């Protein structure tokens, strides 16, 4: 699965990078802000510095780009398959280490790079074999513009965003109707977070936002949508102005991927144009991360078999001959397990229990299958596909 997604990333020209699992807590905090407080594992080193295990990859990659890639021409197209670590409440029984696959497009702005990120996500989900999935796209720009227009102060804005992050529309509505909020803007806020659909949803949102002079915040999303239509992926994408992600560094596009039957998103991301400035290299940026584990669950739920390379042969016999034969088979692309067994019958048993298609007695120059078929090994043919999937 990682291979299938990686191939898509590579096809778009993304390069794999690795970053350390342990980072300075200050560094992560500078990038991710308050959301880190409850999610990062923290520890103290011998000098008394506070360290943290990375809870996600966006900030470590931003740091990497701002430092090690500072002299390279932008844009950077970087991707990763990496373990991340998050603290979870006790007794929830959730894994604290999981694997993320993702891309970051740094140094490129505008609808075309937004559309590229969404396009990679759609292609990657299709490539791993998911038959049914939806990618939701929205933008925080509308909400930010409306909050600005509401003129009700930073404290109110923080509360409103917190209720939106908590997906609590009851509290959100109450805040939007609160005293001191421009009533027309409050009405627009209540409507906007409920708008979703295809292209027409953007038009609907534009009508609402236009009434309070905030329609400009939709331009980028509308252009990106046109590019997604042109790229032929729009049928997998749904516009949704209710999406809000828990990391608060997003500045424009936000994207989330869903599969039916899985109660949690497969992954998500968005545009975070201000994060790199915090590391001294201001540049626009966008990306997404997929949870490998959740994608696996979704694949299983859709009865998609995950191809696993089976074992082609077990080779037994005189040790020196075994080593030579196994080497020749591996060179021809076989997967081979070496055995200390010299007896054909015992080797049959071993091959059967290992799920190998063939057993080879080194020096015999042939492979024998469980049902008695014989394959000449001089020259060694390409491995049969019978290793198959399981």
């Amino acid at each position: 699965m990682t291979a299938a997604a990686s191939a898509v990333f590579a096809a778009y020209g993304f390069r794999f990078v690795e970053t350390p699992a342990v980072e300075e807590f200050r560094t992560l905090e500078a990038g991710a802000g308050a959301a880190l407080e409850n999610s990062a594992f923290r520890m103290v080193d011998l000098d008394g510095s506070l360290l943290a295990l990375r809870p996600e990859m966006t900030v470590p990659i931003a740091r990497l780009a701002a430092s090690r890639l500072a002299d390279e021409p932008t844009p950077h197209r970087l991707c990763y398959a990496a373990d991340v670590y998050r603290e979870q409440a006790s007794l929830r029984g959730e894994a604290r280490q999981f694997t993320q696959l993702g891309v970051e497009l740094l140094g490129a702005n505008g609808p075309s790079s937004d559309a590229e990120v969404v396009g990679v996500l759609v292609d990657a989900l299709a490539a791993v074999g998911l038959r049914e999935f939806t990618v939701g796209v929205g933008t925080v720009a509308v909400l930010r513009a409306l909050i600005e227009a509401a003129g009700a102060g930073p404290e109110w804005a923080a509360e409103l965003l917190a209720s939106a992050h908590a997906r609590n529309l009851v509290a959100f509505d109450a805040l939007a109707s609160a005293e001191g909020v421009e009533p027309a803007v409050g009405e627009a806020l209540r409507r906007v977070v409920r708008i979703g659909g295809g292209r027409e949803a953007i038009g609907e949102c534009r009508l609402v936002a236009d009434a309070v002079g905030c329609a400009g915040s939709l331009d980028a999303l509308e252009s990106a949508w046109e590019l997604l239509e042109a790229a032929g992926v729009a049928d997998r994408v749904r516009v949704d102005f209710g999406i809000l992600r828990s990391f608060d560094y997003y500045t424009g596009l936000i994207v989330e991927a869903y599969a039916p039957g899985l109660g949690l998103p497969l992954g998500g991301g968005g545009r975070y144009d201000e994060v790199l400035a915090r590391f001294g290299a201001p540049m626009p940026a966008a990306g997404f991360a997929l949870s490998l584990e959740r994608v696996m669950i979704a694949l299983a739920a859709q009865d998609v078999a995950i191809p696993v390379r089976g074992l082609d042969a077990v080779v037994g016999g005189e040790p020196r001959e075994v080593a030579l034969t196994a080497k020749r088979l591996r060179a021809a692309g076989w997967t081979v397990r070496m055995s200390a067994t010299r007896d054909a019958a015992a080797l049959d048993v071993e091959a059967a229990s290992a799920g190998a298609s063939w057993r080879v007695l080194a020096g015999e120059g042939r492979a024998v299958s469980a049902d008695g078929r014989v394959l000449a090994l001089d020259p060694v043919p390409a491995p049969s596909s019978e290793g198959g999937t399981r």
Partner: protein
Amino acid sequence: MTAGRLRMAIPKGALFEGSLRVLRAAGVEVGALADPGRLLIVDTEEIRFIIGKPTDIPAYVAYGAADVAIAGADVLAEAALDVAELADLRFGACRFVVAEREGSATQIADSYRRLGVVRVATKYPRITEAYFADRGVQVEIVKLHGNIELAPLIGLADQVVDITATGTTLRDNHLRIVDEVMSSSARFVANPVAVRIDSERVMDLAGRLARAAGEVEQP
């Protein structure tokens, strides 16, 4: 994505009748849910109703076993799981209060001064902890499963945090309300992914229920 029935979890107990009322008022066919007997799953043309223990409803929704549900705001706050709260259904109103034995205020203040800790009995440890932490008061929480009002009377705790609709039980047990923690009512909630991929059905239902909740006469 409109495959199959929408799965809706309904709490048995105090919120059950109110849930039926608001569903009917919103024009939702409730079928055998009106009299489920021992059934825990009731199917209608459009909806699969799942009847659960109120405190378990947030888990059903957060893990996606139910797409949507009706649950008390109190239970949602205590569970602190990731669910989308879409509408206030207004029935089942109650208040979370801090209460103590009548005439025990001086004694509690005194022991807090000496020991620096207050012992609080509750069914809702998470809400209680958050409330006292906000005020910088150090508390020892005793988690109980029922008859919370008994705790101060038998010397188990100094104060209690509990829900009350009218305050009668507290008064009958000579407990005095000292502060309000939060108010609660029934909410219409949804799994965060269901809101996104089944949004037409879920948001439509949320809108109908919210309107119906405004019209249903409170008992």
